[in-house]
């Protein structure tokens, strides 16, 4: 028995060494960084990159950081609002809380949860089209009880993902071990993906290697359109419950003296064309008039960027997520049209940045750490 145990122990030694090495890699990635620690770093250091790979506490992180930043100009929305960078705006007091609002009713929730002194003067709210689609909202996508779920760091989950990610060639262990000190989290260390100190997002390596994306050639988006699923559900009318929620949101903003600008974000031109061709998305054309009607009594503004022919497909990360250039163009258009945002947009920076783009998805390197 002794020799069996000795042999087994000897056999398992390399396996153990292998596992220990990846424990070290995981530790070096700082994936265990808590949201509170990340907020502190974001307030202390000019530009950090906070990108967790194995848990998602975006809402909670954004809420904590929004309270600390106490920004005058706030961006709210889903991941489709995260490319508005602070450099696009003249206001030094800026924060992008994009990614915190997964549902139409989470806008008001976010604002109401902010500490009273932290509420913004102006809010740009990016309203995804499917928020008004009953066939999407109806699938538990307007939960009654909202809360910012906090998932604790699970060593077990993160460890296995780390080992398997390496096995599948998703990252280089060397890159993790040599990542800059202001990168926090596995996604930040491995792919330079994560939130910057201003709350906006870096798509990291994907911006220079778009072929590594998950929706190359928009196959996934086209597939969703063909099936009418996963945020591309068919609908011909606006979901009445969503209108009620927006009414309440606008009322809340008005009561709290927050000026609101509502934006309907863009689809990649080919994807938009495919949706039109499909013919099952009549509700898209009804969103802008409906929102305009709701905003009019309060003097709030609405801008529809659903179709942006002035952008090209390669400026999109996937079928419905525009990159830096798309959002820079939106900001430029807003500078011309919006009276609420008048003087708040740094057109000089945007114009210069648009002239010197390193890739169709990426603006000036000054934005990124």
């Amino acid at each position, binding site marked *: *028995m002794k*020799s*069996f145990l000795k042999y087994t122990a000897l056999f398992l030694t390399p*396996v153990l060494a292998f596992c220990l090495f990846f424990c070290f890699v995981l530790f070096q990635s700082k994936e265990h960084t808590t949201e509170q620690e990340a907020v502190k770093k974001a307030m202390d250091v000019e530009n950090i990159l906070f990108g967790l790979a194995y848990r998602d506490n975006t809402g909670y992180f954004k809420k904590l950081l929004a309270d600390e930043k106490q920004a005058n100009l706030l961006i709210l929305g889903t991941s489709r609002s995260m490319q508005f960078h602070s450099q696009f705006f003249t206001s030094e007091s800026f924060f992008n809380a994009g990614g915190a609002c997964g549902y139409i009713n989470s806008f008001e929730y976010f604002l109401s949860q902010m500490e009273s002194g932290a509420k913004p003067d102006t809010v740009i709210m990016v309203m995804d089209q499917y928020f008004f689609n009953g066939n999407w909202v109806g699938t538990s996508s307007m939960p009654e009880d909202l809360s910012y779920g906090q998932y604790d760091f699970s060593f077990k989950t993160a460890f296995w993902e780390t080992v*398997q990610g*390496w096995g599948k060639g998703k990252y280089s262990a060397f890159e993790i071990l040599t990542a800059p000190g202001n990168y926090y989290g596995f996604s930040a260390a491995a792919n330079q993906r994560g939130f910057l100190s201003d709350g906006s997002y870096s798509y990291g390596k994907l911006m220079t290697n778009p072929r590594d994306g998950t929706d190359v050639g928009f196959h996934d988006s086209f597939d969703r359109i063909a099936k009418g*699923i996963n945020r591309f559900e068919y609908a011909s009318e606006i979901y009445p419950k969503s209108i009620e929620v927006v009414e309440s949101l606008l009322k809340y903003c008005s009561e709290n003296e927050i000026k609101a600008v509502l934006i309907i974000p863009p689809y990649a031109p080919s994807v938009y064309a495919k949706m039109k061709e499909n013919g099952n998305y009549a509700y898209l054309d009804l969103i802008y008039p409906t929102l305009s009607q709701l905003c009019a009594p309060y003097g709030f503004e609405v801008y529809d960027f659903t179709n942006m022919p002035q952008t090209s497909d390669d400026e999109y990360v996937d079928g419905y997520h525009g990159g830096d250039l798309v959002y820079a163009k939106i900001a430029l258009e807003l500078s011309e049209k919006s009276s609420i945002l008048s003087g708040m947009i740094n057109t000089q920076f945007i114009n210069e940045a648009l002239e010197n783009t390193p890739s169709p998805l990426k603006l000036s390197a000054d934005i990124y750490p």
Partner: protein
Amino acid sequence: MNFISSSFGIFMLIVFVLWWKTSYKVRIVILGLANIYFAALFGFKSLFYLAAIAAVGYIFGLIIHKTNSKTALFAGISCVVAPLLLFKYLPVYSADFSSLIAPVGISFYVFKSISYLVKIKKKAIKPQTKIIHYFNYIAFFPQLTSGPIQPIDEFLPYVKTHSHKFNRRLAYMGFCRICWGIFLKKCLADILTSYQGAMTQPEYYYGLSILWCALGYSLYLYFDFASYSQLSIGFANLLGIPVKENFISPYFSLSIGEFWRRWHISLSSFLREHIYIPLGGSKNGSLMLIISTLATFLISGMWHGATSGFILWGLLHGIYLICSRFTRTARDKIWHTFSIKKNHPLRIFSNWFWTLFFVCVAWFFFQCETLDKASYLLGYLFTPFDFSIQYVKESIMLLGFTNGVLLRLGIFAIAAFSVDWLSKDKGFGEWIIRKNIVFRTVFCYICIFCSLLYGYLGSVPNVYFAF
């Protein structure tokens, strides 16, 4: 407790050390406590039914031995089978009992009890006088949830003996089995089960996608159960208990009869011994052969589930076997007409192909569980196929496969079937133990590192857990 988990690893290590480091009397108690602890992890109900059925089996064993009466045997079997029938079929026949969930492993320890009582009646064994021995047999933790159904006379001699010495050969065999079982489960079975979307929402897929799913299920079922069996036998081997192979390369069978001699061998043997032969078997004329074959497979199907899909699956196998038997001469003549002998590669290939084809057809109904679902899926399956490369590619990709996953699955499946091919004569255990230490070490490293790097994350219960 999942076999492939750190908690089970620690549990097994403790049992292993205590088992080999303590005296006979203590060892028996340790095994009993380990069995109780393992069963209790599935809840008090599981432990209660296990204890109750063990007690009933033990008492009836003594009664049958004393009276040698058929009535006692019948009563004993009825008592142990009754809870199984109630748990399995009451929820199907009445919605009032839909919340009734069978205790984990009840089928397998009921089968063990039946086997024990019948052997006593046949005077093949003597009843156990100490209940702890009988309990250790019935509740043996590596076999509790899904078998194999090991006969008592192949188990207790290794547990009850005072001179139970560490068997290095068996321990190494067990270790290799565990590595192989982990590989089969993590790198093949659990991955394959993640790509079955077309079976639940066929309207979103191509007809051909359903075919890939059905084939994938046939592979999944085998890898999953073979993996469980390797792990179960491996853990028993570590404790010095040899267990017969439960799967010996079934997908290389050249006939349905051979398939059943290679697939879930312990259950097949149990059904043959306790249903097929008592009903007449093959020695009482053609009519009895047909009746006993159909009845055996009908019961097998009904045991898997009281739904039309399982029943049809069982009946299909019964029909396959009968047809195979009654057409043998005619088929031989046809081959003979073309001057093709028994060991001709074409004939071997044809036999293998058609056996696998019929087995997979039957698995389709097994997977569907009901005929309604089967006909619903068949409606989508038989939509016109477009035999272009693009169509075939899309039918696979729609299921969610990526090139990387397909490549890995392909390599792992080829590796698994290569091992199957090489071990098809005597089974995996005998094959691996005859290899030299370097080969075994490299083999185990490949299994472990592939599972670490490419295995499925998370825990999918073993498929026979449900039965």
